[in-house]
């Protein structure tokens, strides 16, 4: 009896790997412009990102998002291609100093 290729592929993946692949397929790949529209002024944990010829991030899957940078920085991700980006306008104005009692 012939065996479907898909059955062979499924057989050599663990249940966990297969679930992860199916979950990733269900999530939507967004362009960077779309991410900025959907998640304004938020920190994003982006996985499986793609880049252009100049190695700029152009698309990916938003694994986690929040206005809380700490939450995003610590959020789990299994991909080997992980990026952290902020969708808002940076308020940084160039001032810097030493933390109190921590002059180095």
């Amino acid at each position: 009896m012939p065996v479907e290729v898909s059955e062979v592929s499924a057989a050599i993946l663990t249940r966990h790997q297969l679930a992860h692949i199916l979950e990733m397929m269900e999530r939507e790949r967004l362009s960077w412009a779309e991410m900025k529209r959907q998640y304004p002024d938020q920190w994003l944990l982006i996985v499986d990102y793609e880049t252009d010829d100049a190695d700029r991030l152009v698309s990916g899957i938003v694994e986690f998002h929040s206005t809380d940078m700490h939450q995003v920085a610590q959020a789990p991700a299994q991909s080997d291609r992980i990026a952290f980006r902020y969708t808002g306008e940076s308020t940084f104005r160039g001032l810097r100093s030493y933390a109190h009692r921590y002059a180095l």
Partner: protein
Amino acid sequence: MRTVTPFDTSQHHIHTEFFVTDQTGRRLRFDGVIDTGAPWTEFSDEFLARAGLVELSDDEVPIKPNLETQKYAKVLLPSLTICGHTLHDFKVMVSRFDAAWGIAALIGLDFFRRFRVTIDYGQGVLVSEPL
């Protein structure tokens, strides 16, 4: 190797993406700002903690609100790649960053003094070549 890195000339600062290798060997990608007024490169402690390179010490670092980075330690990065150039065991300042800055690092002169660097606003590119 000479590299050409585009940047968005409409932004207030020169933003560039960079990579830090975490303790498991994965390359984490971040956004940073080129800061030619900073002698030292500073990294957000939140993201260094993510890479497993520092431990956060929220209770021990008094932070002034807004405006300024807050340096409080130093750490050696096993691998840092900016503008296509990779440096190993690169020492950076560990700082507390405001979330609204939207960046994970300020790339200072300690990185760029190793290169011949041209900032070309006409073309919107950063050209760099090791000295």
